[in-house]
């Protein structure tokens, strides 16, 4: 640890794989896809549930995931934390399983499991021996509609979630600042509200809120089944039909088409805290995502992120940290992978003896230079190479494909978008990137966040 540059490099990879699959602006012509990534097989059950299978036969195991196209952004106003709270409750028993029995079954079958909630979706998964796949499907399908919630189980779990909130946020000044910044960044979109929820709203969520949320959103026609590992679609199809195919579809509530008004004023959010030892500066610009705003900018922005921040020779690290020595760390991030409006962010932390003003000037100078001179052909080629290589590495783990495909489909992208990603990235030009940079940064407003040390009061 302590190697900021290393972390920046790792993030580049995470973005390329986890969040970088943009909507394909060009329709895929049949037969044209060459550089496929995962070669998944897909089909759709009669009730509308999409199924994706990625084969990897290295070890006789599978990861079985069900993704629901509902996340924190779909919560009713005043009910923040509902999607995440509900996710925890999916382990609390059904018409046939006692509370906790689901996890017991997974464990005694040598499985590992977990679940996660984002702004955009909620997912549940187990990794197990391939011969236990059917059992996992049986119990996962069961809890899609047969959950039996009671006051007895939701009470202690609420306390668990409040402790989770403390661990993640209340104990951590950087996370507290993140929450405040999101709220400044989004004027209108529900992304302004934290996934885990505001404490006072978590405390107020009722059994009826939770049950209603479940009945509205947990349906096969709002779900995606993704399986990767030692199976084929032929293995999966009969099982998927048997367990998931029999669950009736149901109309889903209308989704609100949230739109952000333009950001007209720059904002500066400062948190000074006694426990902060290293100042940190960051600046966020509104940016399009795969499903929001100008999609044609998405791939160019991904390549730009790699140029600015993809490792020790990237522009920001090289100039601010290595050459000018004003920063201990510096980089950029961009996550196109969202149903709603995204962010293009810059961050830097001063070198010892320096301050946030100087890193702010340093990053701004880089943005100005980018707008004035653009990127070079060589930078673009090298960034594309690295990103394309990351799509080969993504096939290494049997778990990664399920995660990437599930996340893409859950926000409304297609398998073709994922599979054509290396090609789409490869088609990005210098001109595309310069145009995208101009669209996102030139004369644009932003939100700046400062995390600062605060001297400890004398009385102790």
């Amino acid at each position, binding site marked *: 640890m302590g190697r900021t540059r290393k972390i920046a490099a790792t993030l580049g990879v995470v973005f390329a794989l986890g969040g970088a699959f943009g909507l394909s602006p060009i329709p895929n012509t049949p037969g044209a896809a060459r550089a496929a990534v995962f070669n998944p097989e897909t089909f759709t059950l009669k009730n509308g549930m999409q199924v994706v299978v990625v084969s990897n036969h290295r070890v006789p195991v599978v990861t079985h995931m069900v993704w629901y196209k509902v996340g924190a952004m779909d919560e009713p106003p005043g009910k923040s934390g509902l999607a995440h709270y509900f996710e925890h409750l999916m382990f609390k028993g059904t018409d046939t399983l006692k509370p906790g029995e689901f996890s017991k079954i*997974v464990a*005694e079958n*040598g499985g590992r499991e977990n679940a996660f909630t984002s702004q955009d979706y909620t997912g549940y998964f187990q990794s197990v021996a391939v011969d236990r796949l059917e059992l996992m499907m049986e119990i996962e399908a069961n809890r899609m509609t047969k959950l039996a919630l009671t006051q007895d189980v939701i009470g202690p779990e609420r306390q668990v979630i409040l402790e989770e909130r403390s661990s993640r946020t209340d104990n951590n000044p950087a996370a507290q600042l*993140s929450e405040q910044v999101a709220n400044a960044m989004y004027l209108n979109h529900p992304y302004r509200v934290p996934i885990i929820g505001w404490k006072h709203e978590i405390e107020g969520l009722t059994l009826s809120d939770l049950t209603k949320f479940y009945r509205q959103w947990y349906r096969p026609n709002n779900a995606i089944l993704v399986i990767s590992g030692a199976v084929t679609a032929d293995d999966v199809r009969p099982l998927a039909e048997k367990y998931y195919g029999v669950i009736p579809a149901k109309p889903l509530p209308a989704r609100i088409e949230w739109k952000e008004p333009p950001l007209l004023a720059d904002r500066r959010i400062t948190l000074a805290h006694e426990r902060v030892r290293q100042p940190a500066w960051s600046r966020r610009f509104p940016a399009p995502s795969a499903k929001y705003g100008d999609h044609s900018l998405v791939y160019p922005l991904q390549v730009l992120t790699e140029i600015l921040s993809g490792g*020790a020779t990237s522009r920001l690290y090289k100039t601010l940290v290595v050459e000018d020595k004003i920063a201990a760390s510096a980089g950029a991030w961009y996550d196109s992978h969202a149903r709603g409006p*995204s962010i293009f962010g810059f961050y830097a932390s001063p070198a010892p003896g320096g301050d946030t003003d100087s890193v702010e000037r340093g990053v701004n100078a880089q943005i100005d230079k980018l707008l004035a001179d653009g990127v070079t052909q060589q930078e673009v080629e090298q960034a594309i*190479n690295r990103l394309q*290589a990351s799509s080969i590495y993504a096939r290494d783990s049997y778990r990664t494909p399920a995660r990437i495909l599930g996340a893409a489909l859950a926000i409304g992208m297609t398998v073709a978008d994922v599979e054509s990603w290396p090609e789409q990235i490869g088609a990005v030009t210098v001109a595309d990137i310069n145009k995208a940079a101009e669209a996102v940064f030139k004369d644009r407003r932003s939100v700046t966040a400062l995390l600062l040390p605060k001297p400890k009061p004398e009385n102790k």
Partner: protein
Amino acid sequence: MIAFFQKKNLPGQNQNLLGRIQTPSGQNYRPFWRQIVLSLGLSMGLGLGMSLSIAPPVQAVEVERVVSPGGVEAWLVRDKNIPITTLAFSFRNAGGGADPTGKAGLANLTASLLDEGAGDLNSQAFQGRLENLAIRLSFGAGLETFRGNLKTLNRNRDEAVDLLRLALTKPRFDDDAVQRIRSQIEIGLKQRETNPDSRASRIWRKALFGDHPSGRPVNGKLSTLAAITTDDMRQFVLSRLTRDRLIIGAVGDINAVDLGTLLDKAFGGLPAVAPKQPQVPAAKLSAAGDVFISDMDIPQSVVLFGQPGLQRSDPDYYAAYVMNYVLGGGGFASRLYTEVREKRGLVYSVYSYLNPMRKGPQISGGLATRNEQVGEALSLVRAEWKKMHETGISADELRRAKQFLNGAFPLRLSSTAAIARILVSMQYNALGIDYLDRRASLINTVTRADIDRVAKQLLNPDTLTIVVVGRPKNVKATAETPDIDY
């Protein structure tokens, strides 16, 4: 988008790296834990017929011993799925625990600088080469070993191996790079000072080990970091990174002959034998039964607890391993999880684990709960410790534990890098090349009597050492918290 929240965090996986502000999506997405699967039988109905606990060998993974023409050994798993090659390697006795007195952090600083320029390539040139060829090369220091990892597309393998060779044998340690990396590590140390998890773990080790090397922070302290010179690092490379200490795991689309050539190229230039070095003395754990409290103004206290454990080579290791699974080891089914989280909602995370260090192994655990509940949570931990000590585990718990531990093992073989690390660990711990086939039987032979014996020997609720960082209520410190300078 932006940050995932999941049902449960793995211990140690919720670190806020460098306290940076942004948490882009993906960064928090670490939903998988340590392990996974395999078992006999057809799929079964709900709750029925879960009686099979004997897992067959992991046939899918065949381990081959490769010795290069130059005499460098590696264990290889061939995998033709993807055109990549992955290496993991470790040098024994070259971790932070072996750093000279007053130079704590030497192994770690050196590890951070090996890829910051080597041979004719300065830092930017070296990094540029890695990046443009999409080669993933990294080094790191643990307490006991110095580690390296290399992952490359096969089409760039020759170049990757050359860069690895350069890094290991001709690191430059240019002033510029040394200064930059040293200051990054210093910043990390300062940040840890006010991070409750880091502070708890530093106090824990200091309380247990005093000045013994096992209690040392691998990243060093501000004072010791400042004392490390470039000469120290050069000396470290020459005297610690030697072939007699080297263990290698290789996975990927590569055959034994090509691997042999690769091994000689990458590692053949290292000194054959390490000069004699002083042995790290045995560790004597102190602080038995004490409660240490470190004041921090946070709403939720971070708690660590534990006592001496077993080494990996101990004949009772597997019994302890099974026992720990039931106590607080895995998933959503352990006793601690059930009592502290599931029934009472006191925590988000509570766990126990075996830390089988060579010098001073421990069985320990942790939890985090609001200040007002620390007393209650700790009584529950003590009660579980006592219950296990007195009555061991039931036949049913033993059966379930075996099913999980055997069934879940193959899940660990998740990627070439994961398999390569397991190959290194098998060699480091002298588990034998057939370990993957034998592992299930090692677990299956554990009996309730074994667990009774181990629980009686290891778990004593009265001598549980406890560290709390926060402002806990209903807990009294019984000893002065040791100073931990950063």
